[in-house]
C-alpha cells in the first residue's frame, strides 16, 4: 500500500498553488501582512487593497501554472486558476486520485490560500477565535 502511494505521488500532477502574487495596480502589498486579530478588530491602514492580483506564470515540472487571487477586506476570498497543465490525460486521471501533499514552508495565514483548517479540537466557544472561523466569515 505504501509503495503504491509513493509511486502515484511521484507521478502526480498536483501542484502547489502557493505563488508570489503580483498586483494589477500600483497599490503594493505591505512587506509584512498584519496578524489577524482574534477579536476582529480592523487595521485599515495596514492591509492590502481590495482587488484581484495575478501571479506570475510559474514553470513546474508538470507544466506552467498561473493563478489570480482576490482580496476583500484584507482576506483572501478567491483563487482562480488561470493556467494548469491540462493537456495530459494521465495527469488528469492521477489528479483525481487522493494524494496528500505538504507544502514545506511555515506559513502565515495571510500567505496561504487555504480552504479549511485542521487543528486540535476546538469547543463551540473556542471556534470564534479559530482560523476556521475566519475562513467561514470570509466565505460566507
Amino acid at each position, binding site marked *: 500500500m505504501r509503495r503504491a502511494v509513493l509511486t502515484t505521488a511521484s507521478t502526480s500532477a498536483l501542484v502547489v498553488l502557493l505563488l508570489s502574487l503580483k498586483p494589477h495596480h500600483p497599490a503594493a502589498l505591505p512587506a509584512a501582512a498584519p496578524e489577524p486579530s482574534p477579536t476582529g478588530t480592523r487595521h485599515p491602514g495596514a492591509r492590502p487593497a481590495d482587488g484581484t492580483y495575478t501571479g506570475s506564470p510559474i514553470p513546474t515540472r508538470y507544466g506552467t501554472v498561473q493563478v489570480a487571487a482576490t482580496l476583500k477586506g484584507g482576506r483572501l476570498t478567491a483563487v482562480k486558476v488561470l493556467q494548469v497543465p491540462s493537456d495530459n490525460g494521465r495527469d488528469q486521471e492521477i489528479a483525481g486520485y487522493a494524494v*496528500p501533499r505538504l507544502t514545506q514552508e*511555515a506559513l*502565515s495565514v495571510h500567505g496561504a490560500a487555504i480552504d479549511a*483548517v*485542521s487543528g486540535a479540537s476546538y469547543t463551540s466557544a473556542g471556534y470564534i477565535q479559530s482560523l476556521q472561523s475566519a475562513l467561514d466569515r470570509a466565505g460566507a
Partner: protein
Amino acid sequence: MPERQRAGLRHVEHVMGTVFSFDVRDPATPALETALGDAVAWLHHVDRVFSPYRPDSAVSRLARGTVRPDDCSAEVREVLDLCEAARHATDGWFSPVAGGVLDPSGLVKGWAVERAAQRLRAAGARHVCVNGGGDLRFSGGTAPGVPWRIGLAHPLRPDTLCAVVTGHDLAVATSGTAERGAHILDPHTGAPAHGPAAVTVVGRSLTMTDAYATAAFAMGAKAADWLESLPGHEALAVTADGGCWHTTGFPDCGTPLITGS
C-alpha cells in the same frame, strides 16, 4: 437555515460541543440545500444519541447499564463495533472507555463528519468539505482539477500554519492540546497523555483517521513508528519543543517543515 449562495453552499453549525463548517462548491440546487439541511439535522440527532453529557442519550444509558448494546439501534451498535475495531487496530491506544465510563466521543465526531459528507455526495455534491471541530473530510476540489488546501494549525504559534495538505478525496484529523489542554488520557494508565503538541493523520475515511490521530497522540514518542507502518495513512507531528516529524509518504518534504523559532 442554510442560505443560497451564488457559487455554492456554506454553513456553520454549533452542535456536539463544537462547530461544524460545511463548504460545498457545487452550484447550489434545491436538492443540495435539502441535503445540507438533512445533514445538519442528523448531527443534532447524533448528539442526542451519543452525547455522554445527556443523561437520556443511548450512550449514557449504556454507561449506566440500564440498556444493553443489543437493545440499542443499529447506528449505536455500528459505532460500538467501530470503536472495537479502532481499539484493536491501535493495540489499545484508542479506547471508547474513559475513566471506566463508556465514552465513544473520540470516534463519533469523525464518524458523524464522514456520514454528513456522504449525505451531501449522495445528493449529487461532488466538491464538498466538512470540518467538524478541526477534523475534516473533503472530496472533489475547489474548482475542476484544483485540490482542496487544508492548513494545519500550528499548535504552538496561534494564527500560524505549520503545513498545508492538498488533495482531492481525503480525511484529515488532528489531535493535540491546543485549546483543551491535556484532555486525552493514556488508556493504559488513565493519566493524561504527554504526546506531541499535535499530530495530524491523513487517510481516506475520517472515522478511523480521527481515531488513529487520537491513538497516536496518546502513544507519544512511539507514534512515529506506528504511523509509518500504518497502511493508507500519512502523518505529521509537531513536538512540544517545536520540532516536527512526518511519515515518509508525504511527497516533497525534503526540507524541514518548520524552521526558525
